[in-house]
């Protein structure tokens, strides 16, 4: 593992947490960096809503997003077990995990994943979600890897209860509700772009995210502007392509 890159990542995450903080974007940075630093194939993050239902908040790729959704829809898989037990759940070879997860294990293998590692997102006594690392090969994840993974999960949890929200007299549950609603808004914006450009929702997300980054917009605000029509899809495409480097 590259220690320098790891240190940079924590600085980057800490920077994201200051003003104009966008939780959805923050969680996406987190899963991307985990894939890069922990040398895993994919990562996904789920949060629980006020009813205790898990929702996919961020994923490093579209196929991992679908696999996370598959777990939720089939009520079967390591992330759910991890969330319910509040303990890490792992399996070194999903090809032999059909007894444990009769629906998830074949689906994961079909998607090209052999190892899973699910870490709980814990805030004091409360479990607020689960973070999942996947590997394409059967392997035992190194202890140092899972420790860094857990540290990053803890940073994500801090992101949810950042000081700004406390000053505004919000509580964790309000933050979670806002975050989950931002995710819904993002899906609506993806639909708007997908229809306007004849692209799929995954491509629409890439378009949104690249534009937000290049122009220093908050992802959630950009999604809102796309849905209400104040940022047009054409604008998004043209500026995205022509954005000056900075």
């Amino acid at each position, binding site marked *: 593992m590259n220690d320098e890159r790891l240190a940079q990542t924590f600085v980057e995450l800490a920077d994201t947490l200051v003003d104009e903080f966008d939780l959805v974007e923050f969680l996406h940075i987190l899963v991307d960096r985990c894939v890069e630093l922990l040398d895993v194939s994919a990562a996904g993050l789920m949060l*629980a*809503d*006020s*009813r*205790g*239902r898990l*929702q*996919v908040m961020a994923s490093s790729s579209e196929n991992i997003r679908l696999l996370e*959704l598959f777990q*939720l*829809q089939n009520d079967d898989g390591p992330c759910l077990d991890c969330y*319910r037990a509040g303990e890490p759940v792992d399996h070194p070879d999903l090809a032999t995990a059909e007894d444990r997860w009769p629906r998830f294990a074949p689906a994961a293998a079909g998607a090209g994943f052999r190892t899973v590692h699910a870490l709980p997102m814990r805030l004091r006594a409360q479990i607020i979600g689960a973070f999942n690392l996947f590997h394409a090969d059967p392997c035992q994840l190194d202890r140092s890897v899972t420790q860094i993974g857990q540290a990053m999960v803890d940073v994500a949890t801090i992101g949810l209860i950042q000081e700004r929200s406390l000053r505004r*007299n*919000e*509580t*964790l*549950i*309000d933050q979670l*509700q*806002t975050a989950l*609603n931002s995710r*819904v*808004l*993002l*899906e*609506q*914006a*993806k*639909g*708007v*772009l*997908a*229809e*306007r450009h004849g692209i799929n*929702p995954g491509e629409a997300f890439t378009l949104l995210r690249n534009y937000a980054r290049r122009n220093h917009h908050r992802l959630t605000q950009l*999604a*809102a502007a796309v*849905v*209400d029509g104040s940022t047009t899809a054409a604008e998004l495409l043209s500026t995205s392509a022509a954005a000056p480097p900075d």
Partner: protein
Amino acid sequence: MTEASQVDRIWDAITAHAGALGVPVSVHTLCQTAADGLPVTGVAVAMSGSFLVSELICATGPLSRQLEELQLTIGEGPTLEVLAGTGAILIEDLDAPAYQARWPLFAPQAIDIGARAMFVLPLRIGAIRGGVLALYVDRPGRLGAKDLAAAWVYSELALELLLDEQDGIVTQEGQSTSYRHSETRPEVHQATGMISVQLGISVGDAFTRLRARAFADDRPLSEVAIDVVARRIRFDHEDTR
């Protein structure tokens, strides 16, 4: 999993209340159940109206009705701000200088009427703003974490009941809420965005059209949404009535 059972508990309380009164489950029975179950003086649900700034759907007790009407009359207050798109507004004490400064007309008058604490939660689905759930208390103080979590559950159920009422779906005592869980699938929201472009309408109207289609075809909402995203179903102006 304690939170999931909290939903069941709240839903059971609402349906039991409706059953005792011999009426269908509605936003009204939800407000009454919330007023009984939470340490508050009054509960109101207001919707974003098309002409009015807000439309009061129900209110328990005279205090909550007066407070909602006051905000409509003077054009300021937390309900209107939450309807306009902010997150939840939680006010421990309306008499605090910050709130007196923020709402110079509303805050003193609200205290005159008898309110001291207010907790206003948005009813929303992404960009769709359905309304608010407002809780009023006649003394200052925070709403505890457990009660606040319950309030969010009430707000989610209120939105579902409002949508059902809009679609003409009537819920009787004993009916489970489980069929609604499919609404959390992302395709539902992606399809909503797509339909809004296909028909040139707002996402709120697009969501109504999607639900109406699922209801008319007697199919789960998520299935219809998946077909829209896969471009097997398209909404055209021709079927606009």
